[in-house]
């Protein structure tokens, strides 16, 4: 029973981190129709920046997270302006090549700047150790990750459903030409959404560093995981992404606990089965 509970908590925390990172990818996929293989690289940049701020500059955890998010967005803006804009609406193969090229570059640069070793982000006193939740104790960082994930989900939902930005966003997702004709400046909506997407990736990369360790091959190692979340959840769907993240978190964590000698075998098997059975995603719109 104890094991089941701790696996469940780990799975939930892992799933929430996946959600925070992947929801940004889901937004760019749904809105700009860009297969952005470099999304994981932005999460990795977030992790590196947070680690640098906390360890080398000695800043607090909250400041480190803030620097990670803002720094990654600043790095991403010129990439959006000069590279991504060229591939909106381009054939899928072109998008794959461009974004995998960006990923390779970022990996190479990250290694050059930060070295090949694993980077940690020291947690503040309050997030270390365990919290007693009545019937048992749980690592505080896990609770923090879960809370962040839940908060992001609620915030995003409000943003999309309740604000005028959300209305423009949904209009642009449904029919960008029509939205443009109605006076929505889609280019601005795109840029803003790209920034939000990248910022979320960075936040997820920094908060999730305990679960998804930051090292140069991070961007390739988790690339498929993030893509799977979007492809199962259906692009542009918050609920779908949340459901898919939790499902994949559960599969991956359970596999690690109970059959570690099989590595990720069962994870990929599950991915293939789910995607093959639901080629349009669990909650996706029609292709």
């Amino acid at each position, binding site marked *: 029973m104890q094991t089941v509970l701790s696996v469940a908590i780990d799975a939930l925390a892992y799933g929430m981190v996946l959600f925070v990172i992947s929801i940004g990818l889901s937004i760019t996929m749904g809105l700009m129709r860009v297969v952005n293989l470099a999304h994981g690289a932005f999460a990795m940049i977030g992790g590196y920046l947070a680690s640098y701020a906390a360890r080398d500059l000695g800043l607090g955890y909250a400041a480190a997270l803030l620097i990670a998010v803002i720094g990654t967005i600043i790095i991403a803006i010129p990439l959006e302006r000069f590279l991504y804009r060229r591939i909106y609406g381009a054939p899928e193969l072109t998008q794959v090549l461009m974004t995998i090229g960006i990923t*390779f570059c970022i990996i190479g640069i990250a290694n050059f700047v930060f070295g090949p070793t694993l980077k940690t982000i020291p947690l503040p006193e309050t997030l270390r150790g365990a919290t007693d939740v009545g019937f048992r104790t749980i690592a505080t960082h896990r609770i923090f990750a879960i809370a962040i994930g839940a908060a992001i989900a609620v915030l995003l939902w409000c943003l999309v459903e309740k604000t005028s930005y959300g209305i423009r966003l949904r209009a642009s997702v449904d029919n960008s030409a029509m939205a443009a004709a109605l006076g929505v400046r889609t280019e601005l909506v795109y840029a803003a959404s790209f920034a939000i997407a990248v910022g979320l990736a960075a936040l997820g990369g920094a908060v999730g560093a305990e679960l998804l360790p930051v090292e140069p091959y991070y961007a390739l190692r988790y690339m*498929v995981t993030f*893509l799977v979340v979007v492809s199962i959840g259906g692009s542009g769907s918050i609920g779908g992404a949340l459901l898919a993240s939790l499902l994949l978190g559960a599969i991956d964590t359970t596999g690690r606990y109970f059959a570690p*000698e099989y590595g990720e075998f069962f994870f*990929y098997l599950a991915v293939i089965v789910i995607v093959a059975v639901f080629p349009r995603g669990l909650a996706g719109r029609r292709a």
Partner: protein
Amino acid sequence: MTDVLGRDRPADFWSRLKESSLPGALAIFVVGIAGFFLLPDNLALLTRIIAIAFLVLSLDLVTGYCGVATLGHAALFGAGAYGAGIAAVHFGVTDPIAMTIVGGVSGAIAGLVCGSVILRAHGLPQLVLSIAVIHLFHEAANKASSWTGGSDGLSGIMPDPLLGLFEFDLWGKTAYLYGIGLLLVVFVFLRMIVHSPFGLMARGVREDHVRVAAMGVSVHSVLLRMYVLSGMVAGIGGALSAVATQVVGLDSLSFTLSAQALVMLVVGGTGSLYGALIGTVLFLFFEDVVSAANPFHWLAIVGALLIAVVLFAPRGLYGTAISIIRERRKKSAA
């Protein structure tokens, strides 16, 4: 030159040459022999280039000719390599030609399996399936270490002399010449395939699969057959690699190799056998020079190269060169 109807067709020398696979085969032969004499100390690298060229040609069949984007094509190559290696180590099939056949068959079977899975979806889900498939193959090979040697690699592959006459020597001369021979055969075979009615249908699928389906052609069956063919070609490459290096490592079943094969194809030019060959040769030569210094620098350079190709030469080096020549000729004709 007139066709069977007696109607005039462009009668120039070039169009006749373009239809024949002779110049291509001749070029491979000449470059191959030149490599043998000019770079006698680098035959291992050259043989590796040939083996990977099979993988890139094979990828060209599904990506270039049929338009299926995949990041998991090394699965077919690795299947061929492990097929040939396991046949040699566990079943005593040590004749190099028999190993090559086993590799081709293993690759074709892997092609059938991968094709059946990957072709179930389109767009992003298809891409995800292709990545998941290569990871799954990798994990499976890692786990089945009693057969595959796991992360240590499958070693102890001792191929017999080729045709009972030519020992696989320490300098890799036999392996290299065997590779050139295989490449010639496969190249001529592929030229036939891509110009056959089946190849014509495949091009149609790439251009507009709805149109092809409206002609009564089953798009799925065209793609799946191409996947099997593609698997055979990649499998032969894998087998050549097993014969030449006498080990099979997990890296032959890796995502990285799949992605690199795609890069080589795109740098050379998709949808052309020449493009695939040129891309492979250039990429692996540069890799050999640069990655010796630092593998991460190499990765950054590959990335920059990809971005540059997408932005400035979307048809790849060969494709861009051809279209420049075509424009020139059109201008001079006008």
